[in-house]
């Protein structure tokens, strides 16, 4: 398969990875948490919203319910971390999200069962095709969302007073607090926003990629890999990382002879990239 073709295939799922990757980067920079529950809250919110389908509500209301639910769960998680682990290390803060991931997966089995969720995708079909290669609508939308969120967050962070406060918190949390900035409130805002976005993404892809609670882990891993490419600091590299992971996955399935290596290649590529990118020695604390 040619390079262009594989990139296009990568776009199909890579857009989603990129979108989640951007959320993970935003969370890492603005709240100092690598959020292992990022996908889980979205899936949980989306599944819960499906319960409202029998009420014959318009689709946008269903999605809104998903987003609000996910935002609430995410904000609750953020509140727990901000309240008890406000000054703790990123590792300690992130560890809590591992526990919530476990809890959300199990809760999802209990509440929603394990059958496929009636979670119809919002967008189906290719946007356009040339030859055997199809550019999928959902891939393009996801990529657009990833780039859009990256761009909007950048604008928000540089052009608005809210953004300036968020950056101040990211720079020095205690100093920001001493200036009277509502650190906890703003961090909860970030948690809620990224939670809502997660639910939106899951509602868009529907059960084409999130058919069961398993997707809470299954989608997290490539998304985290994408964010890792951006070293959890650079949204644009995370977008590129998402596409890279998607493309590698897509291309490698074309080579059944190396099927055993296929699952390891994306991880290896990313780790090698990071080892190269972070080749400067970094110490755990400034001094």
């Amino acid at each position, binding site marked *: 398969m040619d390079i262009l*073709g594989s990139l296009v295939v990568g776009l*199909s799922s890579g857009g989603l990875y990129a979108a989640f990757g951007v959320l993970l980067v935003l969370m890492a920079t603005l709240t100092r948490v690598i959020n292992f529950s990022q996908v889980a809250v979205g899936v949980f919110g989306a599944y819960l919203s499906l319960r409202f389908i029998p009420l014959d509500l318009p689709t946008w209301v269903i999605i809104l319910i998903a987003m609000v639910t996910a935002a609430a769960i995410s904000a609750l998680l953020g509140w727990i971390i901000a309240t008890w682990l406000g000054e703790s290390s990123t590792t300690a803060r992130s560890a809590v999200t591992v526990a919530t991931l476990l809890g959300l997966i199990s809760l999802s089995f209990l509440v929603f069962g394990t059958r496929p969720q009636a979670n119809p995708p919002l967008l189906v079909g290719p946007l356009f095709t040339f030859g*055997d290669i199809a550019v999928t609508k*959902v891939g393009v939308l996801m990529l657009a969302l990833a780039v859009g969120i990256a761009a909007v967050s950048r604008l928000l962070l540089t052009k608005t007073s809210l953004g300036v406060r968020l950056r101040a918190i990211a720079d020095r949390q205690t100093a920001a607090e001493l200036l009277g900035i509502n650190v906890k409130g703003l961090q909860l805002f970030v948690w809620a926003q990224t939670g809502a976005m997660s639910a939106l993404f899951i509602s868009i892809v529907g059960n084409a990629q999130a058919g069961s609670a398993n997707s809470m882990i299954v989608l997290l891993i490539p998304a985290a890999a994408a964010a890792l490419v951006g070293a959890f600091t650079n949204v644009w590299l995370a977008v590129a990382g998402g596409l890279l992971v998607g493309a590698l996955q897509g291309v490698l399935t074309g080579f059944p002879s190396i099927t055993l290596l296929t699952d390891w290649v994306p991880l290896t590529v990313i780790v090698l990239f990071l080892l190269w990118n972070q080749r400067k020695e970094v110490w755990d604390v400034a001094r």
Partner: protein
Amino acid sequence: MHSSRNLKAVAAIAAVGALTLAACSGTSASDDPSSEGSAATGDPIVVAALSGLTFFPEAPEAVQAVFDDYNAAGGLDGRPIDYTVYDDKTDPAASATAAQDALSSGAVALVGGSSLLDCAVNHTTWEENGIVSIQGTGVDPYCFATPNIAPTNTGPYFDTFATLYYGSEELGFENICAIMVPDEAAAKAAYEQAIASWSASTGKELSYLDTTLVRGQASYAGNVSSLKSETCDALFVAEVGDAVLALLGEASNQGVDLPVLVLTSAYSDQFAASAAYSSDIYLPAEWAPYGDMTIDGMQDWADSMDAHGVPKTAFSQGGYLAAQYFIDILESIDGDVTRESFTAAAKGMTDPIDSPIAQAPFLFGDADFHQPNNTAYPVVLRAGTNEWESLGPLLIGDEIGWQYSTVPAGT
């Protein structure tokens, strides 16, 4: 809320180092004295099952429903059936433990089990301890290839054969492309045997076979895109419901609209409601289509399920049948009901039990392997609808060249 109570219980019991906790006892099926005057109250007959409760709760629920009715009607000469389901968490270690649990409960037989790996893990234990299992839904190949297990369902390997056969012979697809998750080596071999059996019967070959899938794949983009460059007029997918949905979702996104042949595990209302695919989806139902009340026995089944609040699905059909078969064999026993006498009765069966629901008579008997059910009833989910439609006619394995496989493993 359950949770706080559970936590307290856990804390209290864990704190005293609860290894000394009394040996486990399954909760017994509560007799319902209010229903009929003749409810069974005698010495209970203990029956057990292993099930991945999270994944297949309906099969054992259906068994319980049948037994409740049976007990209410007086049981076996006043002796009720005491039925316990052991959750194997779809985990081999838990399954092995649950097997010991079931054995030490004094169960005379295992009825209506439904687990992804129970047969593979425990079949030697059943053999060693002289107990038979009338599996509700058997999945792994050992369910169909060992002496002490006889499932009521046909299993994914016959399903594979039947759905391919229906595709090539009835629907006339010339170029079937297949995507399947091989799971374990034994299952992979069993699938390969099923495909070989289809080729032997029809003289056809798959145009394309992709066995690189794994459970819980993040994306099927690559699999679908590889498929697109092949010549296919139908797509066979061997995966469970949610994975099939995800794969078909990706296929739709990439503009694939081939007719699809899937396995019976997709046969549910949820699947029908969730699928958004622009072509027909065919599958071989293991029993009479669960929505078709015109078939003999289906109304009884539906009434029983409704009375006990069990969902009417293919899985509850399996459980219902397993329980019915069990009672039939139970009532054929002369003298004391024990594990030994039940096993002897099952293995000594010569007259099959007729069942219109299964559409094939059930015989345990003394064979090295059992696959009493080898029929499939084709159904379809038409593009744009969300209800399964019965197609028929019934496919009977013996008539269309199905070759039983006796040794499941080996590559």
